[in-house]
């Protein structure tokens, strides 16, 4: 380890998954030993598996939180500060995995994006970074305007342009500001309703996974369709979110 402002650790080969505790040899729970309490080497698993969950999206957040706190009480580095250095390293790895998994799964959007990524979907880059990057490099950002928003977005863009010009010459038109503010509210409502649409998609997805778990075959075609529908909702939501942010910036808040 170097002692610079940025320390480095070497990536260790992923330990082989074992069923027994490295310390006392009893059969162990996944992340720590039920018998002696020792932290176990982290297994390379996805966030759902880490919490012992199947890839369903309608999550019981209260249960997730409960598991999170219980696992924190076993895995956190503060509670393993007197352990050997290898164990401390595992505690650090395990608790960061725990925190990463909890952070991702408890947020509805992050959870959906994460599942899609696990399912091999490369999400359309509509993040703020992409926008900024496009802005600073002068490239036109690839952005598909959702068809049901085309007209509205067109109007809004004209008004925003007007507002910017006014601001530049130091005037302001309260009526225009009010109108834009109203549209912003509307967009925010749309963003909210898209969340409900997303929840509906979760239901469909989870139903499909349940059928699969019950031994009924699910075609790749169906899987893909469900995925695509979720990607579509996410894209529209991202688009509106960015729009709301741009409007907010133009209004100066």
């Amino acid at each position, binding site marked *: *380890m*170097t*002692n*610079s*402002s*940025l*320390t*480095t*650790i*070497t*990536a260790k080969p992923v330990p082989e998954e074992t069923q027994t505790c490295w310390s006392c040899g009893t059969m162990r729970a996944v992340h720590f030993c039920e018998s002696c309490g020792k932290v176990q080497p982290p297994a390379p698993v996805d966030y759902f598996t880490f919490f012992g969950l199947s890839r369903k999206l309608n999550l019981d957040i209260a249960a997730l939180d409960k598991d999170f*706190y219980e696992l*924190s*009480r076993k895995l*956190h*580095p*503060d*509670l393993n*500060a*007197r352990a050997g250095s290898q164990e401390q390293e595992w505690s*650090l790895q395990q*608790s*960061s*995995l725990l*925190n*990463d998994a*909890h*952070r991702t799964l408890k947020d509805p959007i992050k959870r959906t994006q994460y599942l899609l990524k696990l399912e091999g979907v490369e999400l359309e880059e509509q993040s*703020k*970074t992409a926008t*900024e*990057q496009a802005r*600073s*490099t002068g490239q036109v950002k690839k952005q598909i305007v959702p068809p049901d928003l085309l007209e509205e977005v067109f109007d809004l863009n004209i008004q925003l342009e007007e507002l910017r010009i006014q601001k530049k010459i130091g005037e302001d038109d309260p009526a225009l500001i009010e109108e834009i503010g109203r549209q912003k509210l509307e967009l925010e409502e749309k963003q909210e309703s898209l969340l409900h649409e997303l929840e509906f998609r979760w239901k469909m997805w989870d139903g499909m996974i349940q059928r699969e778990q019950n031994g009924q075959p699910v075609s790749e075609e169906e899987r893909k369709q469900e995925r695509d529908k979720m990607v579509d909702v996410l894209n529209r939501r991202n688009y509106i979110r960015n729009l709301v942010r741009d409007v907010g910036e133009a209004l100066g808040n």
Partner: protein
Amino acid sequence: MSTDRIVGIDLGTTNSLVAFMQGESPVVIPGDDGSNLVPSVVALDQDNRPFVGNAARNSLIATPERAVYSIKRLMGRGVDDIQEELKFFPFRLAEDLQAGEVLRIRLGERTFTPPEISALILRQLKRNAERFFGAQVTKAVITVPAYFNDAQRQATKDAGRIAGLEVLRLVNEPTAASLAYGLDKKQNGIVAVYDLGGGTFDISILKLHDGIFEVIATNGDTHLGGDDIDNLLITIALDDTLGDLGLDLRRNAGAGQAIRKSVIEAKIALSSQSSVNIDVELPCGKRYLREITREQFEQLIQPIIDRTVGPCKQALKDAGLKPEQIDEVVLVGGSTRIPRVRALVKELFRREPHTDLNPDEVVALGAAVQANILGGGSEATENMLLLDVTPLSLGIEVAGGVTDKIILRNSTIPASATQFYTTQIDGQANVAIHVLQGERELAKDCRSLARFDLKGIPPMAAGMARIEVKFLIDANGILHVSAREQRSGKEAEIQVQPSYGLTDEQVEGMILDSFDSAEEDFRQRQVIEARNEATTILAALDKGKKSPAWGHLTTDEKKKIAKMEKALIAVQAEDDYQGIRKAIDALNQGTTRLAELMMDSAVSVALKGKTMDEADMGEGPTAPHPMAKAEFE
């Protein structure tokens, strides 16, 4: 329970403290002068030996060029970051400082990096604890402002190592305060900790439930505090003396320090009085006199304390909470004693803040609680667990100079993120990565943590390599990076060029007192130190008896002192360091008034004899204010 004692240390901008868990409650360990607070001031004596604390603070006026305070402001910072500080603080940079080098500060004829100066303060605290326990102390938990970035944290950790301390954990100051606060409350709810000290401001919002102290959001300003209020008052005084007397005291460090001392006293008095008179003797023989009312003072400082509003609102927003949802507000830091600050907090959170804990000590007490948890816990800390967050987003620079955030602020730590990189041209062996910290969109507006190269990528066609880079923020809030080329399974070598900070070798070379480690040496040293101290204080007393101040003492006071002097001389020759210490402490206590009287006359003598000094108060901007003209006598 391990036999090693782990102490908790609050390494403050203004004051530092060391505490430990005595039985089931945390207590502060006093210094050899009996006070719990050790002023974070370091000075050199005539033989260029450093000393720390009240004595160093008292030397600021007589030998300003041999002393330094508020060094925490420079921790983990580069020359470019501190231009603003140099306007207000008499930091004397080493003349031969190279660009990109860690700062070095001149004290007398020697130079020190900020971590070394902090280490001297830490060593003093370590010694205080060792004297208290009669045993060595090598492990500590040290607190840092929640809003400290990676470089500032690393610098603090370096300071610990230089002082011969193994830093088991860096804990955020407001979080530590909540531990001390929650220890005796044992209740659930949402707590906001508002911490305004000498140099830094933090706001943290925590959820307390079943012994878990979970930080939900934190924000702050690492350059906001009582220092800013002091600087404002100093600037006014300097303006007054320049305007009315034509006397430019910006070039006179001793006079500057005398003014600083008196405005701080005035500020503190205004927390309990409705008006105060500043009265400073100037080098020209005149006196600077000014009355400040509470009302004027409040008007003056409003812009400074208003700067805490933004971070509070942002923290609430990040936590997704309304002010009404906060159950308790805890005040931390000396500057929260200012009534106007309390009123502001009350307005912000619509709730009377808690003041039953000593705002100076609560952070150190909390650090002791955390030290206890790390040491295996006890009945009092059973079930307690701290879940803290990273205050700033971590990002990497992508095309177009844009920051791509990979770990967002307020993520619970430890936290990690994995990024994949590839090569742009055939056979490319290196990939450069620039790591940033901050909230801004453009890389140039964020804090640069490090640039590093992934090296030794096996030759492949462009775009074929798949390099996995893992960024991990540990429980101290410090970043670690590891990398691996996935197709070849080869570990990529990482070469880190930290933007700020000391290298391992540099820290190694700075470690103080390596001889500290031998237990016997240590016991002997304790006795020798105590004897030396006895000699010093006895000599000082002899001097005191000859000074005019002696005449001001009552016969009763003189008698008492004589008795204690005799007791100390008697015990000095023995091997009993505890006994010597007790006698020293007694004599110290007994001669406080004498020392004060002597100090007063020393100050005025020193000031009158003072000439222009190279170490100055800087070219601080002028400060327009609503007050009447100052008076001079």
